[in-house]
């Protein structure tokens, strides 16, 4: 994965200055928020379903080795080849080797965040293999040379005019008009030939069904099946946490996933892939490979981030996050943005690289409220803050500052003296009730004013009040 070029603060500042981005984010997340609320309101059993979804994921996580073995056994019996990757590099190597062994020139890919996580796009390019993204949003960002900015709507940062520009250059012939319907038609035409000409189709998996060995994909466009059916080889890349005991358990989670992601009740296409083409089958790939990826997941199993393994990648936490809605997905700098990304990125890229993410959280708790599998995201972010402090990753100025504060705060007299001085100094700096600029805190006051404080501290006023009460006695 590329190292982020800029620090989080700089990326966030650039995003905040981008007016078009703000409009694009508001449009998609606002819509998603409204539709989810309506879908939940229409499903009175949602809370009970959520408790059950959480219990199903916890059950699988508690017996992960059992279910992995069961899945491997059943997928192998169905004729699929199961591969194990300890980390992203190994996953890339396995997929690249399968592609090279099959002498693949053209690979189609149906949207998979795990593929992004392991850096598959770059690995295929390095191996000289043409990769065609088939999800419409992924197609847009492939033309733009970008990474996804949302896990459900990867191109949500792009306006229709920008998409029209990309298609004008990228499609032959270019779309006849700039309305979404015409542009979708153009992409349909453009990608049809790729689907049918591909040597290999790569998909992710929303679920791995242990008792049948099937992988399950869900899409609204139908691109997954067009990706996995015509080529000679189908490769699935999936995280080991995607397991469910059975098809019925997958359905229980699917109800939560779709409502939480798009506000729909069911994705248009929900497909279980069970081994390669059978003898006599009318179509389907000759080989099926399933690459099961750890990449930090077993580490999470053993530490305070275990609950994060429940995540079903619905995106609700980012749609409801005040920070995400201000800065969008790219500012986070990792594969996964928003609250879930702020928890996962330190696992994947290291805490030293990404400690700012846990701090860029207001702790308002909206994400945990909407998470369909009850992940306590703010608690997990706080755990990263604690770890960052313990591992001495916080910058020196912060450590010294907090150290000084702690020293003063433990000495009441000194604390009162310091606050008396502070309050008076702030009054001197304020005008007409507001403090517009503060030395050492320009970053804070650049975007906000602070109310000019009262002339005395609380303790001073309290004392005076107490003295006044006592006087008549």
């Amino acid at each position, binding site marked *: 994965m590329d190292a982020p070029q800029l620090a989080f603060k700089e990326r966030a500042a650039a995003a905040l200055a981008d007016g078009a981005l703000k409009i694009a984010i508001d449009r998609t997340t606002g819509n998603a928020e409204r539709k989810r609320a309506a879908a939940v309101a229409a499903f009175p059993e949602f809370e009970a379903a959520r408790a059950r979804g959480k219990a199903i994921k916890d059950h699988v996580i508690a017996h992960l080795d059992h279910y992995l073995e069961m899945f491997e056994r059943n997928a192998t019996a169905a004729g699929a080849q199961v591969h194990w990757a300890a980390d992203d590099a190994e996953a890339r190597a396995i997929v690249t080797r399968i592609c090279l062994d099959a002498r693949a020139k053209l690979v189609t890919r149906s949207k998979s965040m795990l593929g992004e996580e392991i850096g598959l796009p770059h690995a295929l390019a390095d191996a000289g293999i043409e990769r065609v993204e088939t999800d419409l949003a992924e197609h847009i960002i492939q033309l733009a040379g970008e990474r996804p900015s949302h896990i459900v709507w990867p191109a949500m940062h792009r306006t229709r005019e920008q998409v029209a520009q990309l298609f004008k250059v990228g499609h032959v012939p270019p779309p006849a008009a700039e309305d979404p319907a015409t542009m979708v038609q153009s992409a349909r035409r453009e990608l049809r030939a790729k689907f049918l000409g591909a040597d290999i189709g790569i998909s992710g998996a929303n679920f791995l069904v242990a008792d049948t060995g099937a992988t399950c994909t869900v899409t609204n466009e139908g691109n997954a*099946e067009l990706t996995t059916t015509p080529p000679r080889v189908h490769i699935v890349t999936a995280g080991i946490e995607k397991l469910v005991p059975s098809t019925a358990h997958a359905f229980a989670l699917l109800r939560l996933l779709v409502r939480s992601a798009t506000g729909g009740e069911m994705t248009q296409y929900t497909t279980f892939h069970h081994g390669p083409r059978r003898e006599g089958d009318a179509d389907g790939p000759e080989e099926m490979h399933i690459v099961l990826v750890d990449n930090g997941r077993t580490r999470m199993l053993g530490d305070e981030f275990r609950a994060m393994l429940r995540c079903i990648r619905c995106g609700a936490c980012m749609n409801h996050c005040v920070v995400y809605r201000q800065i969008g997905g790219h500012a986070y700098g990792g594969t996964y943005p928003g609250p879930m990304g702020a928890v996962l990125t330190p696992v994947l890229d290291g805490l030293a690289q990404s400690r700012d993410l846990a701090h860029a959280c207001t702790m308002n708790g909206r994400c945990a409220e909407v998470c369909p599998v009850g992940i306590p995201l703010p608690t997990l972010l706080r755990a990263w803050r604690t770890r960052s402090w313990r591992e001495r990753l916080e910058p020196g100025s912060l450590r010294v500052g907090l150290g000084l504060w702690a020293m003063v705060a433990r000495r009441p007299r000194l604390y009162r003296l310091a606050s008396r001085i502070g309050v008076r100094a702030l009054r001197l700096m304020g005008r007409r009730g507001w403090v517009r600029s503060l030395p050492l805190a320009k970053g804070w006051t650049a975007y906000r004013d602070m109310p000019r404080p009262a002339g005395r501290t609380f303790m001073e006023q309290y004392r005076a009040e107490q003295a006044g009460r006592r006087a008549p006695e």
Partner: protein
Amino acid sequence: MTSRERIFAAIRDSLGPRRAAPQAIAAEAAVLLENPQATRPRLAAPDLAEAFALKAKALGTTIDHVPDMAGVPAALRRYLDAQGLPPALALQPAAELAVLNWEGIATHPSLAPDEPVGLGLALWGIAESGSLVIHSGADNPVLLAFLPLHHVVVLRRDRLLPHLEDYAAAVQGAHPPRNAILITGPSGTTDIEGSYVRGAHGPGFLHVLLVGS
């Protein structure tokens, strides 16, 4: 150590040495499916066909009611005429469809990359979500449900199931096909500025011929 061994070792390390027996795990998994009505949506109507139709139509699927299988070709002709399409289509090579009288309609088994119309048979319909279930096989190419612009699906009323779990139960223990596909509405996307556009990659039109009375 292979990566497989490393992953299992790491898992067992984290989960601890005292592990449940497979039967105990299976029992626990079964408990998580008990009392399903408490955790799933109620049907849109008490009658299965009505519930199915309500959900399917909400997603843009169109439905025509046909008294029996023999009436399928005529119903199809009605649809093609209404859509201004010529009387030709890709037909799923299923015995139940092959025996019908297709006179006046040119059927072919192959699929062109831009096939206008495909007709297939659903194994089940699910009332809860308005979904159609198809299984791949010798008599059912997967691409029949994805390449055509118009996907017409024959669904027999007596193949309607109330809930998703009922489908899972219906196939429990049977050897699963290469692909089991639940189709719920025509293909669509909201990827450009959130505007909903039909016919993203798969069919832009999904038409169900609900057979039986």
